[in-house]
């Protein structure tokens, strides 16, 4: 990605950079694509470009550990370019792309294709993830050495659990040689059965087959035990249950190497919201929306640091997969362009402090996967998000940069929006009419 020359002064905004402990009105000086300094007052040279951030937040560009960019193979749902465009529109300057493409990313050629498409787009930085198992079949290990060298930052069979405990053990062990986190999608498929939503009073009323929270809990418990056995780096994806949060918190306390993420929708919505929405398939995802008690526990996990990151699990689908009976519809929703507003809303309701929200979108995820991002420290790449925390807007999926329109927030009035995003000092997103 070409880094830009020149000097940019981002002035007057509330700079929130948990990684360097800054929270206050500062000027961020960007020079030659990196953060030159973050200072209280500075006389700027006459030729410097100025971004007026008064009344706004200035944060490190967000880091999303979990997106589906659908390329190669399902370009009708999303491409690396459209996904990266949606990312920067949402303030995300680094995204981690899951390998369940067609073909799956289990070798260097797919990894290189994704990176080449991202470089050509020149928007968000895209970090590919390789498969845990060859073709995500859960039988043999993929070649982590080759995946690492070609640019993968983690391995995952996301979309599917690693059913074999023996393979999971070997994955955690083998990945240690390359320092790769093993990111896991946790569900016991036999307990899930044909379930399509959380099991509880709502599934009973709706007459839909339920998935117990424990289908996730038992696999999280297993993998924490295997992480302890192997000393490998476990990353639990899209944590949705009280039991998972409790088990992860307890394991971290004992020094098990585990990190974890939660999605905006599992933080903000419940199975009762699905029930209220009728059988709207934009409320169908895996893991499913859980109970209020689970959602509260996940919010507490973000608040107290048991969970490191907010990740969107951005999962674009076309209407071909979604305008169906609830049982038949595909799992997943888009999230890049709504995540900040949804999570800011939760912070405003007291779910977690604003500073913690920014941490879970920046340094938290960057540290979990060892990415060079998530900070405004001097010398860091100038990946910056400028956010208007008071901007009210109506969520119109037709106006998304993503090809995906599948969001439960369609038509909702949201507050808080990214107005500018810089990647390597280049302005890659400016909200139309925002200034």
């Amino acid at each position, binding site marked *: 990605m070409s880094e830009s020359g020149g000097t940019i002064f981002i002035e007057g905004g509330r700079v929130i950079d948990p990684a360097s402990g800054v929270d206050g009105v500062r000027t961020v000086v960007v020079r030659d694509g990196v953060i030159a300094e973050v200072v209280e007052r500075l006389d700027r040279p006459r030729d410097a470009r100025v971004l007026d951030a008064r009344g706004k937040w200035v944060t490190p560009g967000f880091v999303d550990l979990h997106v589906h960019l659908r390329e190669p193979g399902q370009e009708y749902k999303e491409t690396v370019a459209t996904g990266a465009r949606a990312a920067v529109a949402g303030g995300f300057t680094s995204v981690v792309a899951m390998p369940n493409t067609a073909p799956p990313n289990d070798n260097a050629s797919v990894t290189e294709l994704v990176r080449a498409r991202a470089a050509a787009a020149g928007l968000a930085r895209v970090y590919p993830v390789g498969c845990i198992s060859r073709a995500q079949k859960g039988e043999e290990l993929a070649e982590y050495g080759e995946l690492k060298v070609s640019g993968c930052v983690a391995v995952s069979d996301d979309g599917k659990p690693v059913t074999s405990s023996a393979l999971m053990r070997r994955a955690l062990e083998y990945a240690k040689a390359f320092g790769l986190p093993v990111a896991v999608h946790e569900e016991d498929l036999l307990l899930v059965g044909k379930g399509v939503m959380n099991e509880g009073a709502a599934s009973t009323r709706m*007459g839909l087959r339920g998935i117990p929270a424990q289908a996730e809990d038992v696999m999280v418990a297993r993998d924490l035990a295997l992480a302890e056995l192997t000393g490998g780096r476990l990353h639990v994806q899209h944590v949705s249950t009280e039991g998972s949060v409790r088990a992860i918190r307890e394991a971290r306390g004992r020094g098990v190497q585990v990190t974890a993420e939660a999605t905006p929708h599992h933080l903000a919505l419940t199975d009762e919201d699905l029930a209220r929405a009728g059988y709207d398939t934009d409320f169908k995802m895996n893991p499913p929306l859980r109970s209020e008690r689970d959602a509260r526990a996940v919010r507490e996990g973000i608040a107290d640091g048991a969970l490191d990151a907010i990740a969107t699990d951005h999962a674009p689908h076309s209407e071909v997969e979604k305008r169906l009976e*609830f049982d038949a519809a595909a799992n997943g929703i888009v999230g890049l362009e709504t995540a900040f507003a949804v999570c800011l809303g939760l912070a405003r309701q007291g779910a977690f402090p604003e500073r913690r929200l920014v941490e879970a979108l920046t340094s938290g995820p960057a540290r979990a996967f060892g990415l060079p991002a998530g900070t405004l420290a001097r010398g860091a790449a100038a990946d910056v998000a400028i956010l208007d925390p008071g901007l009210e807007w109506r969520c119109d999926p037709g106006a998304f940069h993503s090809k995906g329109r599948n969001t439960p927030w369609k038509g909702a009035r949201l507050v808080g929006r990214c107005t500018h995003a810089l990647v390597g000092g280049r302005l890659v997103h400016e909200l139309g009419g925002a200034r």
Partner: protein
Amino acid sequence: MIGRHRHCIALEAFSREEILEVLDLAVSMKEVLRRPLKKVPTLRGKMVVTLFFETSTRTRSSFETAAKILSADTLSWTAATSSVTKGETLIDTARNLEAMRPDVLVIRHSSGGAPDLVARNVSCSVVNAGDGAHEHPTQGLLDCFTLRERLGGFDGKTVAIVGDISHSRVARSDLHALTKLGARVRLCGPPTMIPMGVEKLGATVHHDLRTAVEGADAVVMLRIQHERIGDPLIPGTREYSKLWGLNVKKAEDWLIPSCVILHPGPINRGVELAPEVADGPRSVILDQVENGVAVRMAILYLLAGGPSAEASGSGRAQA
């Protein structure tokens, strides 16, 4: 219109008054049904289409009979598969049928919520003839009609529903309607067949058949689906029948003399219901079948021929 509703999809959404409106009208419909010349011109020129994604002879026949007595034209469309397997989507199928200008579309589908999806995408009225494990509102209404005939009313009455509550749309519709009408509902079955959180819908849960049926004014026995065996919800029909089936001895020992027995059909004789009980004096199973026609006549009349049907125009309904 049934009260506020242009469709009949879920009794959960119906008020007590809306349920009673259907039951009251069904009384006159039953009188029509019993005439020697059972034909009235009420829905002449109207069209009722039945769209079934699950096989069902009795429910479809009941709807068609109801429509024919009211002089509506009927068209029945059987879809061999749902869109879970590749093929035309449910919305496309429904829109194709809608293009034939029906007044009422009756749909049965194996997925909960399928009638809602159809109702959101067509302009005619939609009647749910059973969607997955969600609801079977016309069955719920005909059960209530039958109970009111036999018990006189619902206040202070207790109804036990026995069987696989988890997978039963009949149980859900009965439960919603009966609790709205003022009856107490007991649900009974093995713990593997009781869905999570069902007590929040206002029922008490029992695993012992005797405590569930003792003192009850009516017992609804549900059909045990053979595919549930080995699911594994129950070890087999032998133990199920012994513990949760109703035979003559249990009926005589545990039921109050006035207690009636209902079953939505088709019966597994010897599994949930012994033949002597199914054919015995407490059984109102054949009344249910007759009342089903009357109740469906009432629903078709209210949706396709009622005075407000003209005024409501072609706007889409919300519920």
